[in-house]
């Protein structure tokens, strides 16, 4: 027997807002992602020039060399608006919390072999500062980028980097001693292994073109660093001491896989837009990739020893395949 539940049905005048209907047609409702994203940034009739940047208007397409007919073509395939973003992260946070509890309740940090713990602290803890760099850069794009389609997810990316910096910090508090974070910070500031990487990120801090920054940080740096650290170095730590560290870095591993979908979509669409974009994006990606490889080598050598070169080759090879699929010519 079927029970039909009814509410009073009245006929709507329209399915969605006109600016959305112009894009998807007037005959269907729009998703919350679309209604919360499309065309909500002002594009005209600005009242004053920024005192801090009078060469541009408040939102200005000329803050990048990349040109798009429609900046809203850069949609996020994850369809993150605030609600779905926070709920997705809350699920990951619950799992991460549960992992940290597991490690602590079973004393896995204390049981982790000393040599493995030492390596983990050396290679992971200073990365909390690099994460902070990712936060700064993505806030830059959120502030000065064009069109909510790309600026919105950069806010999320920035907060993700802060969250991951905090998870790394927490790992340091669990696995290390009272001075482990300070030792890691000193290494970040002075240690031989980290100076190229710190130089890389500091150079990104003064870049003006926000799309180049997107390439340098979100595509290239993350695209090489995450597989190196959270796949390959993670495996070494796991082989040396068991899964305690992997448990505490699971958030980063999962996060990377998800964020790649978004970064790839932005690059693919902007490359396909025009030959000029393709040339510019490829030039940026190549230059920053070549530099990133150099900066990551000392870290790879320290963690992977004699396997460093072959693993880096495989990481770079995978990055190159990924880039080729996006239409980049490196």
């Amino acid at each position, binding site marked *: 027997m079927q029970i039909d539940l009814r509410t009073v049905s009245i006929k709507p005048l329209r399915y969605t807002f006109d600016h959305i209907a112009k894009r998807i047609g007037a005959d269907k409702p729009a998703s*919350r992602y679309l209604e919360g994203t499309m065309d*909500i940034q002002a594009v005209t009739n600005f009242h004053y020039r920024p005192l801090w940047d009078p060469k541009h208007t408040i939102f200005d397409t000329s803050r990048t060399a990349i040109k798009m007919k429609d900046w809203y073509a850069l949609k996020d395939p994850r369809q993150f608006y605030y609600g779905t973003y926070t709920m997705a992260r*809350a699920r990951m946070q619950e799992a991460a919390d549960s992992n940290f509890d597991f490690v602590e309740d079973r004393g896995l940090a204390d049981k982790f072999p000393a040599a493995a713990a030492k390596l983990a602290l050396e290679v992971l803890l200073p990365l909390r500062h690099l994460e902070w760099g990712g936060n700064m850069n993505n806030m830059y794009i959120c502030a000065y980028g064009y069109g909510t389609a790309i600026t919105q997810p950069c806010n999320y990316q920035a907060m993700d980097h802060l*969250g991951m910096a905090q998870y790394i910090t927490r790992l340091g508090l*669990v696995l290390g001693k009272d001075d482990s974070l300070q030792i890691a910070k000193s290494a970040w500031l002075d240690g031989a292994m980290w100076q190229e990487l710190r130089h890389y990120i500091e150079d990104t801090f003064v870049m003006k073109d926000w799309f180049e920054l997107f390439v340098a940080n979100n595509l290239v740096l993350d695209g090489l660093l995450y597989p190196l650290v959270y796949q390959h170095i993670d495996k070494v730590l796991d082989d040396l001491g068991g899964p305690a560290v992997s448990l505490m870095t699971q958030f980063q591993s999962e996060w990377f896989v998800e964020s790649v979908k978004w970064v790839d979509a932005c690059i693919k669409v902007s490359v396909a837009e025009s030959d000029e974009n393709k040339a510019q994006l490829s030039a940026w990606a190549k230059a920053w990739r070549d530099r990133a490889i150099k900066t990551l080598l000392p870290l790879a050598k320290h963690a992977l020893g004699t396997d460093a070169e072959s693993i880096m080759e495989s990481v770079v090879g995978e990055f190159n395949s990924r880039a080729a699929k996006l239409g980049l010519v490196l």
Partner: protein
Amino acid sequence: MDMRVKKKLGIKERYTVMTRDLGWETTFQPMDDVFPYDKFEGIKIHDWDKWEDPFRLTMDAYWKYQAEKERKLYAIIDAFNQNNGHLGVTDARYINTLKLFLTGVSPLEYMAHRGFAHTGRQMRGVGPRVACQMQSLDEIRHIQTQIHSISNYNKYYNGFHDFTHMHSRLWYLSVPRSFFDDAITAGPFEYMVAIGFAFEYVLTNLLFVPFVSGAAYNGDMAATTFGFSAQSDEARHMTLGLECIKFMLEQDPDNLPIVQRWIDKWTWRGIRVLMLVGTMMDYMLPKRVMSWKEAWEIYFEQNGGALFNDLARYGIKVPKCAEQAGIDKEHITHQTWAALYQYGAATDFHTWIPNPEELDWLSAKYPNTFDKYYRPRLEHWAEEAKKGNRFYTKTLPQLCQVCQVPMFFTEPDDPTKISYRESDFKEEKYHFCSDPCKEIFDHEPEKYVQAWLPTHQVFQGNCFTEEADPAAPGFDPLAELLKYYHFNNGRDNMDFEGSEDQKNFAAWRNESVKN
């Protein structure tokens, strides 16, 4: 955050290690190049480490608590939509407040999102950056939850359909638009005083509590829910704004005059924007919560009083404009509604004369002014409307160069005299509604002469679509202007009486109770 880690460090140390310890002094690039905007305003900061973090939230806690709020909120929005919740409002006139909100206020949330992203990158101190970034994230939450809540109304009622387009063009919406453009184009410290402090602390309760209570009183579950849910974010924003002020004032006594000037300017600019909210409270809510006068007395004079008493130890004084605002509280909503009513052919929401019971409420709430200055005109218009001569002004008003409100405000000591002020700058004359607006202009004329004043732009011929042809016979400038505004002429505008909204609401409500 697990308890063991918690017990190792107190909340303050833990938060330090989780935030400001992440940053470092750059050496490969000069710090001044990494942070190019935080010195030019003349604010002196000697020790960023003295910043006290308000609401020490790590990202994991943020995601957890905010996700819970979102789940609850969207469950209610879904229920509201599924059950034709819009038919539960007191009467369809209420829905016009939401049109004003979506076109006037929601886009400001978006600007706040971008503005706090800007300060979230440009402040040299890590602590304030983190707080600004969370606010940036909260603000996109606000615009999206507002769009999502109000989306259902867009399906059934007029005026909601192109809110960003209208926010950038309409003659009364440049009041809020220019307010935020002004804030975001100012330096990062001024932005923090303008929005973080003046708007989010001093004035916030004047926007949200009456508006959200208004929604609750009028049966709008969707707006009440997003309002209260957003307010919990606002509590964090308030603490950020207050901390910003304290920090600047404690860092160097030279900051005091700069900060005081900003507080004076932004309190005034904020009050001018809020008069739309006040008018909504007094004229647009079928079931009224309190009068603008009462809200002003509670939320500015009392609460604001407590705040400025507290800040007096730094040398901060109550903003100069408070005195005029105290006089204006008995007049501005009546003057504003009169303007919106007579320009109702060009408003994106309906207008009307309050019914006799509502006029009596206004008399009771405004014993010194309403019957003497404002009731007669409203009753006259009601009479005219009954005769079939509903009054519409066919031309457009001059706007104040600074606040961009039409020049209908009166002298503080004479409500029968329009208040005009003017200044000359580079051989042009500029016009203002008041002394505080003139003072703002005189301090930074190069900034305010840039303003895109909607009605002035109309008269310069800049507000027509490409197809408009002024030379064509029968050219109707108002109708053409409404095309530029993307109005559905005759459906979005004009009197509530006889509107499609009125007819539909009555018919649908009827349908939901009859067989």
